[in-house]
């Protein structure tokens, strides 16, 4: 009997490429869910069309973008991650020679691409719907800021999936976090919650993202406040990612 031989040579490039093709195809086929995360910021651009003059175009655009980023991180990413985990899709991938970091990087790459696309859609929408004109450099800076903010909310989504086992519970916690971040963020930014409330909101992931996006949109010089917002965002991302990676379970059975 001939004994088979297996000459295995790790080909990480091919592994990552295969995962990316599969994950981007999956994202493309999940069109409705992806469209929904783009829809909310576009609806906001419409809803605040008449208020754009009063509130300022930057406020309208940054609020729409922030809500879109939170949607992608909390719903687009965390819920799909929890669903795939519950179905055993990760377990099937983990018995192959694909490193676990490659499986996760591929997922995150898809979400980051989604964030960049959503940011461009919102900027174009702001121009067409609210007549908010953004130059090329501020637009690039806005995309960059959106990616940093997106990483914060993807990390938060990862932390939720790490700490919560069932898909339903992940969905509920993500909804709660979404409402807490968005509603408190918007109300707080108007000063309705008092000075302390406003300060808390400013330092929340929503508030620091708003500061960065506004600075990017208005091509502001880098002030101390913007640096603080950037570092706060990086800090949030590190803390959430640390929780999300340390406590993540590939299988909940």
């Amino acid at each position, binding site marked *: 009997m001939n004994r*088979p031989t*297996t000459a295995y040579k790790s080909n990480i490039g091919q592994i990552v490429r295969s995962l990316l*093709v*599969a994950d981007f195809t999956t994202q493309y*086929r999940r069109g409705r869910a992806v469209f929904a995360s783009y829809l909310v910021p576009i609806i906001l651009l419409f809803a605040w069309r008449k208020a754009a003059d009063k509130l300022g175009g930057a406020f309208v655009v940054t609020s729409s973008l922030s809500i879109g980023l939170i949607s992608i991180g909390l719903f687009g990413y965390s819920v799909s991650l929890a669903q795939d985990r519950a179905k*055993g899709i990760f377990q099937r991938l983990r*018995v192959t020679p694909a490193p676990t970091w490659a499986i996760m990087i591929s997922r995150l790459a898809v979400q980051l691409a989604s964030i960049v696309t959503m940011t461009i859609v919102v900027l174009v929408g702001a121009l067409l719907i609210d007549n908010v004109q953004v130059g090329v450099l501020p637009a690039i800076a806005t995309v960059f800021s959106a990616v940093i903010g997106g990483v914060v909310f993807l990390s938060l989504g990862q932390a939720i999936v790490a700490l919560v086992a069932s898909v339903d519970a992940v969905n509920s916690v993500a909804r709660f976090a979404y409402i807490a971040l968005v509603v408190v963020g918007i109300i707080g930014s108007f000063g309705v919650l008092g000075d302390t409330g406003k300060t808390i909101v400013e330092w929340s992931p929503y508030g620091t993202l708003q500061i960065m996006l506004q600075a990017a949109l208005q091509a502001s010089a880098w002030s101390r406040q913007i640096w603080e917002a950037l570092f706060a965002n990086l800090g949030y991302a590190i803390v959430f990612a640390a929780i999300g990676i340390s406590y993540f379970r590939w299988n909940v059975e």
Partner: protein
Amino acid sequence: MPPKPILEVTNLSVNYGAVKAVDQVSFRVEAGEIFGFLGPNGAGKTSTLSAIEGLVKPTAGTIMVDGINTARDPLAAKANLGVQLQSTSFQPELTVHEIIRLFAGLYGTALSRADVDQLLASVKLEEVGRKRFKELSGGQQQRVSLIIATLHRPVLVLLDEPTMGLDPQSRRQFWERIEGIRKEGRSILLTTHSMEEAQAVCDRIAIIDHGELVTSGTPSDLIRQHRNDPAVKRVSHGAVTLEDVFIGLTGTEIR
């Protein structure tokens, strides 16, 4: 010098917190062998397989796959394994074609569309390439899973209850394919609750219960060794079968 085993499990223990799922289990699978791993529900079969597959970290012991220590070089060990999990799940949004090409890429095997068509045709599934996995019947899903488990020509194929839920025709076809894989010189480690199937197809069998290896040997050796055990005689009706030995050694209570 005896030939190197394809799989060598030595003093394997797997604990989940305070629960001992696998306790000091040792066995070997030789080249070209079909090895059955039997046990009641919760006996430790899937935990043992999961440790070999790298899904759970052993508490103690060593696992060598074709001479590769799974703890030291897990990815190389995984490259030598073909795996069919108990409940197979692939991305529901992907077609069968796309799933096969994904897994081929993960094993470093580049497959063209024509290659995938050929693979599907080899198991009479040429018409399902564009369908989503969830749209296939149980038997078709099983065939696709086996294609994916073996497309990189692994030295050892691990099958966790592979015939569960299949109709008799699909089971018959499945065992023919397993025999074909063995004829290529590959080894197969499988778990099953069907004693008739185990007796018919396995070269050797190990019975595990409460995480411990109870006995192992060829089906006929196990029957010969245990046919006079009082517990086996109590449950047998006429000639002692592998099922009598299994129930005699692991008890009659439902787990």
